[in-house]
């Protein structure tokens, strides 16, 4: 069902975002804890990175139909 795709995409997006955010946060936390002396900037950096990556992935995923691979273009 094509209408379910979007939902699926959003699910993925969200799941991915959650993961990425979590991971970023976790890494951030880890890094912040580990490397960056509990600064908050790695957490935010990490969450931000995670979120950003998730956003980008979501967007990309949502755009994926409209964007063709270069290989496909060349073909």
């Amino acid at each position, binding site marked *: *069902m*094509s*209408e379910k*795709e*979007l*939902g699926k995409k959003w699910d993925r997006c969200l799941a991915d975002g959650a993961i990425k955010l979590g991971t970023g946060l976790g890494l951030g936390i880890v890094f912040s804890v580990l490397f960056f002396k509990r600064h908050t900037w790695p957490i935010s950096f990490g969450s931000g990175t995670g979120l950003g990556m998730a*956003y980008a992935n*979501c*967007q990309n995923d*949502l*755009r994926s*139909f*409209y964007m063709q691979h270069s290989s496909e273009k060349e073909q």
Partner: protein
Amino acid sequence: MLRACLRGANSSARKNFGRTPLTNLQPCRHYTAGESGGAAKVVAAGLVTVGGGIGGTILYAKWDPKFRAGVEKNVPYSDRLLGLALGPASQYGGLPIKNQEMAQPPSMMEKPQKGSKAKMEKKLKDESPAAEAGPVPAQPAPSIEEASTEATHIISAISEMSSVPAPCDSEAAAVKEECKECHDHKDTALSAMDEPEPVASEALKERPVEEVTARLALQDQEEQEIITSVSASLDESLASSAKATLQAIGAQEAALQAIAQHTVKLKEAMEAEVPPEEKSAQWKDLEASLAERTSAVTSAETALSNANEALHSLKAVIDSSKGLKVAAVRPLVLAAEENLHNMVVDLDKVVTKVQSSESEAKIVSQYSELVNEAKLQFQREVTSLTPEIQANWKGLTGKLSEDDLNALIAHAHRRIDQLNRELAEQRVREQIHIDASLEQQKLEDQKALEKAVSTALQHVKEEARLEQERKLSELREVMEAEMRTQLRRQAAAHTDHVQDVLKVQEQELRADAEQVLSRKMLEQETSYRQLSQEQLDNFTLDMNTAYARLKGVEEAIDSHVLAEEEARKAHHLWLSVEALNFTLKTAEADVPTQPLQGAAQAVRDSCHDNDFALALASALPEESLQRGVYSEASLRARFHALRSLVRRVALIDESHNSLYQYFLSYIQAALLFEDKHQTPPTQLSSEDLDPFKLLAYASFCLEHGDLELAAKLVNQLRGEARRVVEDWLTEARLTLETRQVVSLLSAYANAVGLGTTQAP
């Protein structure tokens, strides 16, 4: 309103005409008054004309019976009026004249017909003409009579007469011979005396042939009866009279004989001087002969009276038969009369003979009486003289004495003297006596003479009359024979002429008939040929038509078979299509229908020779075949679910597809309110391509069951919305496609079914 108008019209009319009657009356009166007089005149004139016409008609009808007949025929009930006015129609006035004219030719025709018919009948009945010389001669007499009348009529009215039948002549000739025979045998053949029928003194009317024949038969019968009766009577009377006459004659002759004998004997007795014994015997003989004579005379007288009676009766019969006014009886009557005359003559002769002998006998008897008287006187004298001597003095010769003898002699002398004196006286008176007796005798002779003369005259008259009649009949016969020969000649000439004419006619008729026959034959042949040709043509035509019909029937049957086949196939197709249709309905909510593969296969099977159906059947989309299609309801429901999604991604397309756009489109969807359902316009304009509007339109269409339009509208979505509804669209498309194909198939099957079913 109408009534008001009418009322108004009536009132106006009344107003208008109310005035005019007053003014019109007077002229009307004048008019009617004048006209009444005029009408009366006209009526009177008409009546006069009609009366005059009727009177004129009646008068003219009175004068002209033909006109009357015409009027009576043409104008109904005029016969009554004319009968009232003129008396019963003298219709028969014209006819008697005609009848009289016509009666003679018919009577002419009747008579020869009658005569010939009677003759022919007789001839047919009789076999031996000689034996029937009697009956047949009856006919020639009438035929002769009739032939004479015929001849006169023929000569007078030759034009009206039709041909006299030829057999009449030959028969007449034969009959004439027989007639001659009859005349020869008439004396002997007294048994057969016929009398012809009375000549037609009947009414002068034309009679039909059957009547004529009946009358002929009747007349023949009557004739026969009369003939038999008259013949019988004549026979009887003739026979009786002949017998009586003969008897009388015989008796008279016998009387004569007796008288003669008696006279002779008397004379002998008177004059002969015989011995006394013989004298007594003689006297006895005399007495006997006297007795005989008296008896003979009486018998003769009775016989004579009988004969006279018989002759009278015969005469009466002859007169009566003469009085029957029949012509042909004359020769027979003539014969009878001659017989009668002869008999009468004989009788008279014999009677005269007897009378003469009687007179002689009287004389002799007188003489004998005188002698007897003298003898008696003498006897008396003798007895007076000699009383003792008895009468019979002849035997007393020995007994007489002398005195007696002397006395006798003296007496005798005295007697002689006396007698001498008487003789002298007698001689003296002789002359006177003789004169007186002569006178007496003369007178008697005269009387006798007169009587004889009268009888002789009568006889002669009778004979003359008979002779005349005989001559007359002979003459008539001769004339009739001559007439017959003339007639025969004429008839022969006529028959010759008729034969010639007939021959000519026969020739002509034969020629005509042959012509007609040949023509008719030709016609018949041509018609026959035509008929046969027609028959042949008809037959071939019939055969052709039959063959054509047979062919037609065969074709019809074949086509019927084909049609049946087609119908069956169509039915099959229809059934399969129905099945397919049914499978479409098996869709439940969110569950597609059963795969249409089987039904489609069935459809395909049921129409392998039908390209259209095959094409259609193969046009079914694979998906529907494999998986089935969704029902409209499910699609609708899905659309509703989709709608919100589409609203949410309404702004997303190729260019605008970042998350931000997504966010914006989400907000738009949250904040924008549109109609749930909106009637789609007939033509989409550019502003109608807004997804929200499209969704509204599509939703409206879906609500109203128009999936196609909804699909079309949804198809206008672009971008992400489009991507979202792609599946729905595909499903809708599938469903629509399948439905279309199925409906087409069904329509086709229906059409085919309708086409193949034959309307009742």
